[in-house]
């Protein structure tokens, strides 16, 4: 189908976008369009006006240090997937970006849009929660920081206020991260996926742990019990098994065309163990 008609406005700066978006609920932002345009074509989204933030200056740029990865909201998932700096200092984000959709979608889809869309099947929300990142948001009341645990409210709903835009992602970096996802087909969303980000000390002790899921009923839930199982240990096989089991048991799953609850639970457990093994090996490597 073709999208319904709407008015179109090209935002020239963040301020302009914010004031255009604050006009009402039927005004929607478009960044890469890779989630919004399919919804327009299926006529699930029916905005009266679309504000194109895709050319707003200042929302691009990747800056990486050992401590953190900072991404402008308009950075594409293809750019994240291809960045050697990110792959060195924050492999969780590289691995998550590389399994998003397919290369064509990644060429246009943005990191800000991937989070703001809050699709429980999207991959970057789980990466953000596991790495305890935060986003900078700018809206009619100014700029604020939103922690990953406070960003996702429910499927397709974030805590962004009307008119508020994600402008930047700030993600603590760690070499001890990994992302595991099971897909039915290359260009499809995943069945489930597991994001892991650990902070491992020189002696191999796990000082902090982040574990989050994609493909569950909630958006990027944190696996608290899995994290508690890991922290303070050396991440041996029994710890990995225990943490993976906890992540699987606590996952709130629903049966659909991608699989039954039992099947998905088994997959969460297997992927969690795999991601943890890789993250721990990287931390000790």
């Amino acid at each position, binding site marked *: 189908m*073709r999208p319904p008609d709407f008015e179109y406005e090209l935002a020239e700066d963040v301020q302009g976008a914010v004031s255009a978006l604050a006009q009402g609920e039927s005004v929607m932002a478009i960044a890469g369009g890779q989630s919004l345009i399919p919804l327009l074509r299926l006529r699930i989204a029916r905005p009266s006006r679309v504000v194109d933030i895709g050319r707003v200056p200042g929302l691009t740029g990747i800056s990486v240090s050992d401590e953190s990865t900072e991404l402008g909201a308009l950075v594409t998932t293809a750019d994240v997937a291809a960045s050697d700096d990110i792959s060195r200092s924050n492999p969780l984000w590289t691995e998550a970006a590389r399994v998003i959709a397919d290369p064509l979608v990644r060429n246009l889809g943005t990191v800000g849009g991937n989070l703001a869309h809050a699709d429980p099947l999207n991959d970057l929300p789980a990466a953000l929660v596991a790495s305890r990142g935060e986003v900078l948001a700018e809206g009619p009341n100014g700029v604020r920081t939103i922690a990953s645990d406070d960003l996702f409210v429910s499927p397709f709903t974030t805590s962004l206020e009307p008119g508020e835009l994600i402008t930047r992602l700030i993600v603590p970096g760690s070499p001890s991260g990994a992302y595991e996802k099971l897909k039915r087909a290359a260009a499809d969303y995943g069945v489930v996926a597991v994001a892991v980000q650990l902070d491992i000390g020189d002696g191999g002790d796990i000082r902090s742990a982040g574990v989050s899921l994609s493909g569950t009923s909630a958006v990027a839930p944190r696996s608290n019990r899995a994290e508690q199982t890991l922290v303070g240990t050396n991440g041996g096989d029994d710890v990995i098994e225990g943490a993976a089991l906890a992540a699987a048991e606590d996952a709130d799953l629903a049966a659909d065309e991608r699989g039954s609850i039992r099947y998905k639970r088994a997959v969460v457990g297997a992927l969690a163990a795999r991601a943890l093994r890789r993250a721990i090996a990287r931390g000790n490597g």
Partner: protein
Amino acid sequence: MTDITVTVNGVSRAVSCSPSTLLVHLLREELQLTGTHVGCDTSHCGACTVVMDGRAVKSCTVLAPQAHGRSVTTVEGLAEDGRLDPLQEAFADHFALQCGFCTSGFLMAAKAFLDTNPSPDEEQVRKAISGNLCRCTGYQHIVDAMLAVAEGTT
């Protein structure tokens, strides 16, 4: 209506259209470039793939105004002076098409990929076309054609 200027296959084209127009419809209906196909409603099939500013994208998932000021290459822009692009030759030589519906999309995804990765391995080639569906060939001949171009053995 919005006024849009897009460079299509090297030629600047000015079009006035509704902002809800998809790039694929702008190409097919306003510019009569019907080599770019529409195979689905859900942005999954890649039959509509074109190269925009050097990157392969699904033209059914780009609004016409998002393409304003950009440079778009479609399958019609591959041949030069009536001579097929080596990729097109390789697709023919390797039987990389049967019904041909998906072919223009594959060609454009392959073009953008090989332009930036001139000597890929088979796994990279397979990943590069993972956004394109073909219901006929089983993909192997498409992979063979792309590798032949990369290796210069066409």
